[in-house]
């Protein structure tokens, strides 16, 4: 069953087409990823999903409800973790959770109980009475995520949940998100971290310039679009180039680095290292990052 249906969603700011007729579905119980470089239209898409940004065209259905008719009911059933810190600095950690529950018309007793559960789940119990200002970036993120879960949502929407976090915090958040998914929570997340998407997403789309470039399971997409493995050659000389020119393979030339995409086996790698040279040659499995860069290009965005 589809918990989110997005059909031909469009948003234009003057001459900028932020989102151009995007369509995708999120199934119940899955983690769906919206991947793309900065400025691709991820956040705009997410914001239209909960009515923060009005859309110019398209149809949005969440839980089978049309967003134009039942926006309040939809918002009551989703948890949103925005990209920017929007914790209430005038309140303590615990008050941020209990106070937020009030906006969902959750009883005091229930919200206190829920807040205690969430503080424990995110290992924040010892910080319950702390002010927001003294929390580190990682703690703030955990609290933002806890706050998004205060209404026991059926769908969790995360906008770049781990941007700017240290590896420890990021690992912890990933673990928690995986645990939430196992409990049956549906998740829609935006990210530009490929490791995050590979680890969490059952299905994903890669968007750029407001358009969907590909859609599918991460492992399938990589295999179909990139191959099984990638041979990287640092500081290639003419001998290496000549060798590759004689072989049938896809080569990407980055000047001081060559990337060779291999569909199967490591014959080419063995042949190269045996006959030409070994140093600077690495064979690694193809990943989502290869696909991402292939689709969205290597030039800087901002």
């Amino acid at each position, binding site marked *: 069953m589809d918990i989110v249906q997005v059909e031909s969603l469009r948003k234009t700011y003057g001459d900028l087409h932020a989102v151009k007729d995007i369509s995708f579905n999120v199934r119940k119980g899955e983690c769906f990823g919206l991947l793309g470089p900065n400025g691709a239209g991820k956040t705009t898409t997410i914001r239209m999903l909960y009515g923060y*940004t009005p859309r110019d065209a398209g149809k949005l259905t969440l839980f089978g409800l049309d967003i134009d008719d039942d926006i*309040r009911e939809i*918002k009551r059933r989703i948890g*949103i973790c925005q990209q920017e810190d929007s914790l*209430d600095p005038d309140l303590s950690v615990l008050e941020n959770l209990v106070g937020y529950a009030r*906006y*969902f*018309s959750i009883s005091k007793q229930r919200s206190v109980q829920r807040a205690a559960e969430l503080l424990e789940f995110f290992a924040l119990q010892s910080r319950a009475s702390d002010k927001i200002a003294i929390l580190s970036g990682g703690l703030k993120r955990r609290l933002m995520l806890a706050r998004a879960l205060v209404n026991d949502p059926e769908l969790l929407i995360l906008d770049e949940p781990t941007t700017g976090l240290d590896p420890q915090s990021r690992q912890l958040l990933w673990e928690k998100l995986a645990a939430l998914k196992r409990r049956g929570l549906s998740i829609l997340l935006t990210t530009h971290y490929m490791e995050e998407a590979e680890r969490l997403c059952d299905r994903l789309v890669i968007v750029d310039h407001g358009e969907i470039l590909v859609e599918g399971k991460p492992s399938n997409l990589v295999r179909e679009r990139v191959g099984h493995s990638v041979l990287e050659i640092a500081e290639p000389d003419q001998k290496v180039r000549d060798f590759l020119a004689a072989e049938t393979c896809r080569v990407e030339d980055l000047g001081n680095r060559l990337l060779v995409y291999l569909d199967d086996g490591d014959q080419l790698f063995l042949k190269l290292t045996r006959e030409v040279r070994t140093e600077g040659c690495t064979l690694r499995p193809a990943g989502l990052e290869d696909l991402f860069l292939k689709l969205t290009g290597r030039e800087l965005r901002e």
Partner: protein
Amino acid sequence: MIWPRPAQISRRTLRVWQRNFTVYSRTWKISFLPPLLEPLLYILAFGVGLAVMVGELQYGGRVLSYTVFIAPALVSVAIMYNAFFETTYNSFVRMYWQKTYDALLATPLNLEEIILGEMLWAATKSLIAATLMSIVISLCGLFEFPGALMLIPLALLGGLLFAALGMICTALVPGIEMFNLPIFLGVTPMFLFSGTFFPLQNLPGWAQAVAQLLPLTHLVALVRGCSLHFWSGTLWLSLLYLLMATAVLLPLAIALMVRRIVK
């Protein structure tokens, strides 16, 4: 610009009010000090210092001491300041830096309710300040009862009006430092020329006419009329002015904030 519709407003609006009340009540001991001390300072400065030079004045067919004359004006100014500064500086900080509205928009609340809740809270601050000041002033024996009890609804009405004016400024200013402009051009002249510290009749005719356009003039007239028992038919006109201005500015403030925030 999209005008708010009554159907957009639910009881959840009070949750926004409650959020601000929770934060305020935490520091109530400090928040209560200015309205309690301010009238005492003014009464001391004007009643002891200035009144010696001014003495008594003729107002509404009665002879009043200068201190009695300005006491209602002090409450009126406090109503203006409390609401206006809440929906300018404080609301701007919550909107722009604290991202409080963003957080609330991810809940079943809508923007119209958030802005209305903010203005209701600002009016509540006016009410709290006016009540505390009136208690002090009454203890000094400067107010007449039961007329002074009318200050409760007047503080709410005036509070809503100035909250709406403040929110309109918040919807229009590019940055927080720009609030100096409406304060310098609007609030300060009102503070001085709304029949606060001298009767409007002292002004030249054209200036009196301009003063009649200022909302504080009508709030001062009503507060003074009620708290000193100067009853006259023109008070109804002042009440009508405040009611009509509030009825227009409150939805306008919401519409302008929606225009600012929704992109």
